[in-house]
């Protein structure tokens, strides 16, 4: 079960619940995306700007399948689990569900030059997919990166309502 520790935090859930979706009216691209054989590498300015905004929307941004509460892919689930275990602060975390938005799903692949989901950004920098996150979490690099980026829950924080958050589970 993934619903342990941090991920029980209602702030985390609320923060990511809406999984902001990217809306554009670019019909031409929408059509191109729906036609798999038209493999033109086009990432319209409009979509690129929308993704730019998404990437900038929080310190830690995850493009995933499903939502943090209900991941729809094992790799997205594993990534969410790791971020929770690392103690990522829900206040600085945003998740985008690519399954809700075909333009985002295709666009993010071009944007990152990365053909798979999930994709993690920290401070607007692309970090990697599930394998990289997993290996960085084992080596300690991920903790370092999140720490130095100010993305972790502050140590001394005892905000009301977060008493059930088991900070001690952080590795």
């Amino acid at each position, binding site marked *: 079960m993934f619903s342990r520790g941090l991920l029980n935090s209602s702030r985390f859930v609320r923060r990511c619940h809406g999984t902001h979706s990217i809306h554009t009216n670019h019909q031409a691209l929408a059509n191109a995306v729906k036609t798999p054989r038209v493999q033109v590498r086009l990432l319209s300015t409009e979509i690129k700007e929308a993704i730019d905004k998404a990437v900038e929307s929080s310190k830690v941004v995850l493009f995933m399948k499903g939502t943090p509460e209900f991941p729809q892919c094992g790799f997205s689930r594993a990534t969410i689990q790791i971020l929770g275990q690392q103690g990522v602060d829900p206040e600085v975390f945003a998740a985008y569900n690519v399954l809700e938005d075909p333009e985002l799903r295709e666009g993010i692949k071009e944007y990152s030059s990365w053909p*798979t989901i999930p994709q993690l950004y920290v401070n607007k920098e692309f970090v990697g997919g599930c394998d990289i996150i997993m290996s*960085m979490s084992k080596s300690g690099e991920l903790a370092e990166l999140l720490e130095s980026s100010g993305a972790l829950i502050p140590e001394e924080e005892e905000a009301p309502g977060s008493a059930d958050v088991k900070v001690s589970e952080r590795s």
Partner: protein
Amino acid sequence: MSTSVPEIVKSSENPGPIELTIIDKLVSSLKPSYLKIANDSHKHAHHAGLRGASNVTESHFRIEVVSSEFEGKNMPSRHRVVYQLLDDEFKNKGLHALQMKTKTQAEVAK
């Protein structure tokens, strides 16, 4: 000049066409000393991301590659090298996910 023969571990005796292409491309471009490939497609055949997909038998692979081509490259760059080689498979052939362990000879020897 003799080049060493790479050690290749396939997923089965009779790998499918996509797996064979993956092996071909990685071997010719990366000249790996070791390449292991496993097919995990059956574990994912029903998940949400594959709804409506025509290829569900060769969609998910797991590879381990040891190659000197990875020297001096960080992990995202290494994975991108592989992703770029398999661009056509991802875009047009229904390859969906690739778990990767990418190492250099020196890292394996450690």
